[in-house]
């Protein structure tokens, strides 16, 4: 595209002659040229398009941009010599003359209030779901006829037995590492045998429940969310509602019960494999005979350690299931929201596990010590 000043330009009516194809490559030149030397108020800007053979949407938009500039600065813009093909394009593209002003941004207090109200609603929604699901789960234990046992067993198999491999491997390695690291220190004092006590206590009290919970949150918490969110997006939950099939009984309760029954079992396995890891380090690296090591392990553990560990894992399971359900059911919109909800679910579940674990440590070993 070429752009030249017309010889007929006067102070009152400036004319620009355009030639060639007015498209995305030529258009910026036009806008720049007009802006560089703005026509005065009440003057006229004539764009001579008689030599313009074609115009695309970018070119049209530029013409509109110049028109708006004129509208704002008080000069008129006219087109001259528009060719039939160009005119067709100009008729095809449509613009809204009065652009609505952007909505006013909410003020500080308004957005603070909105955030607080949103948080109150979210907590409310969570509590309702928590109450419904927990009550439903307890009820179904006393009225076994209501319980969807097939769903429960399917969920248990996925959350429990299929998680054994990964939970077992990770906690075994944790026990191994724990024993190695503590052996390095304890050996200096000739107290290598205490590796057994240290590994046993830290596995049963902390590492077993905690690592299992984190793994289960990443594995099953996320799958609860993605499954429920997919159901929500596919209108399956709406369908259940109009079919009179309660979501809580059909979906939430079996998942919750499977989670709270499988997690303590997984934790027991995790404890045992962690201790096994420590035992192997004791035998191979520290040359402690197998029997004294095991004896020391049993001596170190008290019932309270096991009970508190399992209680914790039960509470973690309850929280992971609820958080998973809550994030899943709260999804709005399309499929891309499912991924976001799943991520949010795992992050908040792990956050919950760690905060709850700290609180339990204080309660069990400070308050109840």
């Amino acid at each position, binding site marked *: 595209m070429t752009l030249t000043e017309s010889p007929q330009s006067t102070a009152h009516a400036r004319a620009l002659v355009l030639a060639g194809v007015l498209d995305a490559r030529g258009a910026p030149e036009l806008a720049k040229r007009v802006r560089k030397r703005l026509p005065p108020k009440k003057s006229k800007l004539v764009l001579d398009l008689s030599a313009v053979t074609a115009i695309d949407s970018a070119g049209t938009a530029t013409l509109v941009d110049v028109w708006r500039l004129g509208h704002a600065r008080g000069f008129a813009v006219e087109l001259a010599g528009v060719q039939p093909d160009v005119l067709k394009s100009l008729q095809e593209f449509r613009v809204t003359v009065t652009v609505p002003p952007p909505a006013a941004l909410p003020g500080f207090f308004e957005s603070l209030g909105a955030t607080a109200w949103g948080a109150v609603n979210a907590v409310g929604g969570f509590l309702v779901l928590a109450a419904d699901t927990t009550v439903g789960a307890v009820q179904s234990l006393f009225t076994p006829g209501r319980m969807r046992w097939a769903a429960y067993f399917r969920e248990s198999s996925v959350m429990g037995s299929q998680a054994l491999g990964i939970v077992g491997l990770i906690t075994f390695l944790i026990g191994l590492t724990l024993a190695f690291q503590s052996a390095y220190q304890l050996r200096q004092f000739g107290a290598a045998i205490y590796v057994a006590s240290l590994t046993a206590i830290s596995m049963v009290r902390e590492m077993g429940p905690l690592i299992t919970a984190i793994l289960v949150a990443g594995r099953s918490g996320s799958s609860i969310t993605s499954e429920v969110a997919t159901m929500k997006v596919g209108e399956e939950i709406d369908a259940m509602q109009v*079919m009179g099939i309660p979501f809580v009984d059909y979906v939430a309760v079996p998942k919750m019960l499977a989670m709270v029954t499988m997690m303590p079992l997984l934790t027991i396995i995790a404890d045992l494999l962690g201790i096994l890891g420590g035992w192997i380090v004791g035998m191979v690296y520290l040359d402690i005979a197998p029997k004294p090591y095991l004896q020391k392990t049993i001596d170190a553990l008290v019932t309270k350690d096991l009970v508190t560990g399992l209680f914790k894992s039960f509470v973690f399971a309850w929280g992971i299931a609820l958080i998973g359900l809550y994030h899943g059911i709260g999804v709005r919109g399309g499929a891309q929201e499912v991924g976001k909800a799943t991520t949010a679910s795992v992050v908040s579940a792990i956050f919950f596990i760690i905060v709850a674990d700290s609180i339990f440590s204080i309660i069990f070993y400070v308050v109840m010590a």
Partner: protein
Amino acid sequence: MTTAKTKPESDVVVEVRGLTVRYGSNTVLKHVDMTVHQGEIRVILGGSGSGKTTLFKGILGLTDVAAGHVAILGQKTQNLPEKQRDRLMQRIGVLFQNGALFGSLTVGENVALPLREHRRLPEGAIAELVRMKLAQVDLGHAENLYPSELSGGMRKRAGLARALALDPEILFCDEPSAGLDPLTSADLDRLILTLRDRLKMTVVIVTHELASIKAVADSLLMIGGGKVIAEGPMAKVRAQGIAAVDEFFARKARTVARQDTSVAELFGLKPAKGGA
């Protein structure tokens, strides 16, 4: 049309009065009224974003309602005790946009689910009923397939079979022909007509598909910008000469009255000779 001569009030099966729905500060439905009579095929139509799906969800109680009420088969649905609501919901069937089949169940199990949940039938009778319903929608061969193994049209038909499982008095369909090829869509329309004619079912359809509207609709409710633009028997609405209705039937559905001008008009150019 089929029921034009009967008593005025008693044959009303769906009644919507002053329904208002808000999402945040955005009012999606404004005081919508609708009356559907027994045995008619009512089409709710409108462009995208017009509020027709929200109206659909509002009628079924799937969205929070700011004002107004809905009565189905003479019962107001809001604040209905759970038991009564369940019983009422068993008298209606709903076909959702993509079928909304449960992914963990086969097609047959999906259709059997409402039967198992709400009817005490021997297993043999359930199996027989499931096969009957699937045959009705031409899906006899797909009983043991999972929803993920079906095409979009098959999923929709399976959803219809499930919606029909309890022999509902009213069938609600959300965009039954969306995403279907014209032939499959026409099949579905024919099926809906059969249901009305043979089983005296009332059908409420949300759609923007012109071909399907022309094929099945007895009466229309046109909605735009969250408000009712026109309601009544098909012929009467068409005869009223409402601009939005005419535009819609001229395949130019727009959700809001246009406020834009062409760039040519902006510059005061006359249209080309013989042009629009």
